[in-house]
């Protein structure tokens, strides 16, 4: 592989993942290789159990690929994940955490805000961890992000006093806190009503137009079609990888 000045944002090479102990081992991912370039908006669809969420966690460095099969034979080529050009295979936990902090923004189905903290504090936490901005600068940036996502009046509200849709928008703001190389979303609308789901879809759309790389896992084909590339998974393998050249469908009529 020839070195390039700007490596792909994410690269998976023959990624395997097995879960569970000895007897009950399940081969969730059976050798997935894919490359996601800068600025792409990719959706991954598939039935539950197809391994799409597992793949997302691996791509974001939240989990590590399995290196050997049930007979302890290493996979060839070895399972590798590159995040923004960094080979994460042998990174120690603390450095992998640092990579997540600086380069990845996660949004989950359940919003997972820290309920003792205000919306702005939730957004500021990854910045405080990164340590590039001071406390007050972080809070300013958090407020700006929340304002951009339409939550200007909720900045100082405690997370547990926000509605589900608002919480998910705070979670998106938090994922964007450190200007991540890629935003990884796992069923971001799965726990929202239709209206809020659309808001989230619109936000992603807008982020994508500003050049934000996004990978979104969903089983909602309608939502997946907002992306410009759609990967379909089944039984731990990529079975279809199509480019959605057409302009995304209009948001469904209410």
């Amino acid at each position, binding site marked *: 592989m020839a070195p390039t000045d700007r490596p792909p944002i994410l690269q998976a090479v023959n990624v395997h993942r097995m879960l569970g102990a000895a007897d009950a081992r399940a081969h969730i991912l059976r050798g997935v290789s894919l490359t996601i370039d800068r600025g792409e908006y990719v959706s991954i669809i598939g039935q539950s159990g197809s391994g799409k*969420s*597992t793949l997302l*966690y691996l791509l*974001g460095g*939240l*989990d590590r690929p399995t290196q050997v099969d049930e007979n302890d034979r290493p996979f060839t080529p070895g399972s590798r994940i590159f995040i923004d050009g960094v080979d994460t295979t042998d990174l120690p*936990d*603390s450095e992998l*955490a*640092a990579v*997540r*902090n*600086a380069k990845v*923004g*996660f949004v*989950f*189905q*359940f919003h*997972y*805000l*820290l309920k*003792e*903290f205000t919306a702005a504090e939730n957004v500021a*936490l*990854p910045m*405080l*961890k*990164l*340590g590039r901005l001071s406390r007050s600068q972080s809070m300013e940036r958090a407020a700006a992000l929340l304002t951009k996502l339409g939550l200007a009046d909720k900045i100082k509200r405690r997370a547990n006093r926000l509605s589900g849709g608002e919480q998910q928008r705070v979670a998106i703001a*938090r*994922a964007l*806190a450190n200007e991540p190389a890629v935003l990884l979303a*796992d069923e971001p609308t799965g726990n929202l009503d239709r209206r809020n789901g659309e808001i989230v879809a619109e936000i992603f759309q807008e982020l994508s137009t500003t050049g934000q790389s996004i990978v979104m896992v969903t089983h909602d084909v309608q939502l997946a079609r907002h992306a410009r590339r759609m990967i379909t998974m089944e039984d731990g393998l990529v079975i279809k990888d199509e480019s959605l050249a057409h302009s995304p469908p209009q948001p469904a009529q209410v």
Partner: protein
Amino acid sequence: MRWFVAVRYFLSHKRQSLVCIAGVTISVTMFIAMTAMMQGFTDKFIIETVESGGHITIHDEPREKQTAILERVFTDPNALLVVEGVKPRDNVKKIKNPEGLIRQIRRLPGVVDAAPVVSGDAIATYGTKTIGLSIFGVEPTRQQAVTTIGKDIVEGSFDRLKTAADGIVLGKGVADVLGARMGDIVSLSSQTGGRATAKVVGIFATGITPVDYSRCYMLLNNAQTLLDKKNIVNEIVIRTNDYERAREYAAQIESVAGYKTESWQESNANFLKIFSVQTIITYIITGALLIVAAFGVLNILIMAVLERVNDIAILKSFGFSREDITVIYMIQGLVIGLIGAVLGVVLGKIAIETLRRIPIKMEGLVKAEGILMSEHMSLYVSAFVSAMVIVTAAAVYPARRAATYDPVEVIRGAH
């Protein structure tokens, strides 16, 4: 950033945290109050014993075993040595040339002064009352230079021994048992048949019951006559510049004097042993309290971890490391420990001051008008440090457990 998260978490558990803090506070307070009390009585005993009895006493017992002269000449252990017709000889026990020895001792490092004493047992009778006594024949001025007995006088004065030809200074307990008061004449008779009468010229109270109920002081000459030990000195009482080092000085003096030399620690070994057992029991009780408090901390932190599994997962997802999570939970434990220990130290101080003011008459091994409290900086420091150590230890398990949660498992579990 770690503190920011830890403190917010801590505050969200205010009620449980307060209970936990109270646990630590109570155990630290108890630790301080109980230890101070035990130490108070121990110190009182030690100081009174040491200061009224002397730091070191030389006894008229030779250190080395007497060997027959023949064995000194023929040292071969296999030689058969027989001496016939040996008659028992009355070996008068005494310290030879006491004044010479005293001069020698006074030149030793650490020695402040030394005084000759003749001691022996006698029976005092006053009217129909009788009591066994330890007679101390002393030279009043020199005795007061080596002990604080002069300051323990509650009636009369120690110096009156010098002016009254047949004076005696009784312990408070002795005087009470006999019913003798100042100016009364008591009859004394010794083991060896000596008899005397003496006028009570002083009564002392050291506060140490065994001393006050047995000891009395007379002039050296009078005591020598009474005890049938003419011109004999059988003890030398020594004052040093630091009674804590009496053991070490005693060994030094013994090597010079050649007589058995006892430090106060050796003379009071039985009592000191009781005190050390008491101290151990105190530490066990207060230690158990601290451990219970630590379990409280363990409990609240485990709860705080279980409640926040999702938080831990999300913190990790956006880049918090295991170490960050560990530290966040350790801080919560330490804050509880710190607040609890500080409050405990303050309350401990208050408890000491309060208990000290309670007027209770006590008469055990030590006689006192109230609860004796001994406070040292080291007491507060050790209470604080042991609380912090135990609480920190209790926080380790929950903190490590929090750090090991796999965020993927948590997030998957929520689906």
